[in-house]
């Protein structure tokens, strides 16, 4: 079934872009963890293993025609939703949150695949849905139900960051499909009391604190405001050209929290300065625009929706993570795709890119 055209149409630019970003990420993790205790396998090496694993998965995903996904979408959705329910019933609790579930030999975090699955589900749903004048409130009922179920379950874990991401990804897709202004206005009107009730009853104290501290980090500079303050100091003290590789004082002396994972970009900002950040930001913008370009060039609606969804997923991760690192958004545990250390994020992002590559190289198949 392998078609030669697939190879000639392979999107080398996208792959190169991803490899470039992961390369910067590895170099940065090396610096961020150089002050850590020696380990058998250093973090940067582990990250390389994850990149390789991610690439294998990525290429596997892109070797199968994405149209198959259209058939599986609802089944996958149902399965992951079930896992999310199972997490709440029989999940493993660590650090106050129940996010993992044991499945025989390994553990998974079902909220992570949900990001991809919700994209497929919405793509499947809207690829067959005739909309001419934008979605009405009635049209929105079913998709909002599809979105609401996993979002609430994830929020319940609690994992506010992922819940918000799932909502933002799906929301972006809805905007792409087209929502009527009147429906949009009604949704916003409804959102206010819902947000208020959410604040009052659903949010945990630590989550509220994060928001308070985002608004005024100096309330508790040693405690919960510490992350934001130290990260801003790190990035800002990098100035135009940075303090140099391995010379960031904030990171090397461990003033930064979680500096190889969620706050990896603040290490980068300190050591490479505005120039380095500008380069990274350009690469990421290019990545997102390239994904949207794939959506535009795609010839079928399902593929187009998928590409928009994956681009939105990457986009929101980037914006929320960077916004958090530079003090624009509150601290929510969202990693920077291809850049932060971590297997879960790497796998999800690589699967996303696999889907993009898949769509990109099959755009001439019909």
């Amino acid at each position, binding site marked *: 079934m392998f078609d030669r055209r697939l190879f000639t149409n392979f999107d080398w630019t996208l792959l190169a872009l991803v490899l470039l970003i992961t390369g910067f990420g590895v170099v940065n993790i090396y610096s961020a963890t150089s002050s850590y205790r020696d380990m058998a396998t250093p973090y940067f090496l582990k990250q390389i293993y994850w990149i390789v694993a991610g690439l294998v998965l990525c290429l596997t995903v892109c070797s199968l025609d994405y149209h198959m996904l259209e058939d599986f979408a609802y089944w996958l959705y149902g399965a992951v939703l079930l896992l999310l329910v199972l997490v709440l019933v029989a999940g493993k609790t660590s650090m106050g949150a129940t996010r993992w579930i044991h499945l025989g030999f390994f553990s998974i975090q079902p909220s992570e695949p949900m990001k991809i699955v919700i994209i497929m589900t919405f793509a499947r749903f809207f690829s067959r849905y005739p*909309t001419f004048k934008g979605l009405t409130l009635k049209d929105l009922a079913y998709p909002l139900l599809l979105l609401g179920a996993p979002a609430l379950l994830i929020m319940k874990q609690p994992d506010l960051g992922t819940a918000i991401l799932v909502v933002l990804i799906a929301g972006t897709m809805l905007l792409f499909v087209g929502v009527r202004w009147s429906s949009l206005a009604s949704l916003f009107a409804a959102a206010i009391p819902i947000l208020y009730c959410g604040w009052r009853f659903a949010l945990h104290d630590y989550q509220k604190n994060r928001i308070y501290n985002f608004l005024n980090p100096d309330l508790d500079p040693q405690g919960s405001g510490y992350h934001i303050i130290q990260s801003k100091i790190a990035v800002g003290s990098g100035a135009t050209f940075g303090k140099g590789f391995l010379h960031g*004082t904030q990171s090397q002396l*461990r003033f930064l929290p979680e500096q190889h994972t969620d706050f990896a970009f603040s290490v980068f900002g300190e050591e490479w300065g505005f120039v380095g950040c500008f380069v990274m*930001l350009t690469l990421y913008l290019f990545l997102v625009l390239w994904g949207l370009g794939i959506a*535009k060039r795609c010839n079928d609606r399902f593929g187009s929706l998928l590409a928009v969804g994956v681009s939105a997923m990457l986009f929101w991760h980037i914006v929320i993570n960077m916004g958090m690192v*530079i003090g624009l958004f509150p601290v929510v545990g969202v990693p920077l795709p291809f850049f932060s250390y971590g297997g879960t994020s790497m796998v999800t992002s690589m699967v996303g890119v696999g889907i993009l590559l898949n769509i990109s190289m099959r755009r001439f198949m019909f």
Partner: protein
Amino acid sequence: MKLQQNILPEGDGGRRIIWLSIGAFVMFFLLLSRLWYLQVVDTDNLLDQSESNRLRFVPVAAPRGAILDRNGKVLVSNTPSFSVAVIPQDVKNKEQLIDNLARYLNLDRKEIEDKWNKGQGRAKYYPLVIASGISRDQMEFLEENRLALSGVNIEMKPVRAYPNAQLASHLLGYLAEISEEELGAERYKDYNAGDYTGKSGIERSWESFLHGTDGGRQIEVDARGRFLRTVEETGSSVGNSVVLTIDLELQKVAEQAFGDKAGAAVAIDVNSGEVLAFASNPGFDPALFTGRMPPDKWKEYLEDKRHPLENKALKGMYPPGSTFKIITAIAGLEAGLIDPHTTIDCPGYYKFGNSTFKCWDKKGHGQVDLKKALRESCDVYFYKLAERLGVDRIAACAKRFGLGAPLGIGLENEKGGIIPTQEWKLKRFGKKWFQGETLSVGIGQGYVLTTPVQLASMMATVANEGIVYQPHLVKRIVDSEGKVLKEFPPQVTGRSGIKPETYRLVKEGLLAVVNEPHGTGSTARLSEVKVAGKTGTSQVVKLRDSKGEVPYQFRDHALFVGFAPYDKPEIAVAVIIEHGEHGGSAAAPIAGKLLKAYFEGKGVIRKPVPKPASTSDSEETIDN
């Protein structure tokens, strides 16, 4: 293929992609602007913050300079002391730490909390001293329990050591933590909260020389405050030493001579103005003021009616009593109103207007000339002389001898005393001068007030016949390597402009006071050296024919001023015993001991000599 391009939803999918792209672009631009703000606009501020994160300044206290006597003997030096300091930012659990410290150091919880709160406004990571001067046992105990005491530092600091304990406590002064008000003053602009500074005496007045330059180390620490390396080090430099004109041995003798009596003694080198002894009794323990003053000790100091905290030699203003007759006599001779042969008759009182001025000896002195008037301290002679002189002429003479104004001996808050004139009274009280008041001034009573230092200086000028030297306490300033930075040679501030004949006549009288029968100051007599001087007893309150025991605070002050040797004067002394009642019996013996010690030190008197038996003809000597 072109045909298939419009499969996208109702054909405007392409347009929506463009909108999404624009949205993405705007968001990224927002991120970039924020990065621009942080890394380009606000970078200096954030760089500062990152530096203050990793760099900490550890102050290294500079030892103060020592204070030495004229022969280089140590009066005050330094000794290491251990103090417990806390860096609040490094403390994990404040309440628990305070509990632990209170238990280990045997301190009150509240006391620790107060210190903690007081240090709230200090620079970040500045160690806050909780307790100083802890014992070696306590220090070792804290070191052993380090793990339970994160954020606690034990610092070694030099503190003052007083090898002679309370000796010369008023002169040397004490140290204490700098106060809020002082911190605001120009003089202390280079000081930080928690620094120690001289609060009185030499320690305060010569602070700028004694105080060293604190050094410090800039160290790099990690996020847990652990030391990584020293980035920069500025050495501390030891303060300069102050060498006093004081003679330690003489000072000791002076203070011991007082016993438990209150008073002051000052000895001055007649030919240089150098102060050889500067005693105020009782003294206090200066070390107590630097650490924690036990409340009961503090209460004891405050309630002692001998006022141990007061520097009587410098700030004590007493009526000079009969010692002032020296001035009245000089003024009279200079004005030509008397000569050595002028005699008056003393019936034991002098009627002036409606009132009667009594002589101290009710029996009267009979025919009195100048020498006898001085020797036996006849009041009537000086009443009559003062009446003819008038107050202003007496005051003019007194001022030539440095009375009535601070001398500037090198200590702050020196008192000037009072030498009244007609103008002074008008200004001060808005009232006319009464002639009767002149009579009191003539015998050193009434408004006249002098300090012991002033009396000693006056005596020195009389002894050297007219040269007014600047009395001074500091001989030189020496740096830590012994190099002389500043020398204070004798300085002539004026000449009295009195005829030598006048001095000769007055000094003859003063010699008679100590050495002739009926002289009031015979208890100051030495067998080997000729001593001259004048006794005085000054009234605190007027006691009319009081019977029985007079309460302590109303008893008269006893004074003695003198110099020796008579022929070639070297040293002048002034002694006052508060409420000591009689100058001849209370003050003169102390002056005698002081002079004897001085000449012993010079080798003029051999040390183990029996006391000269000299009281035979002075048993009953008292003067007014």
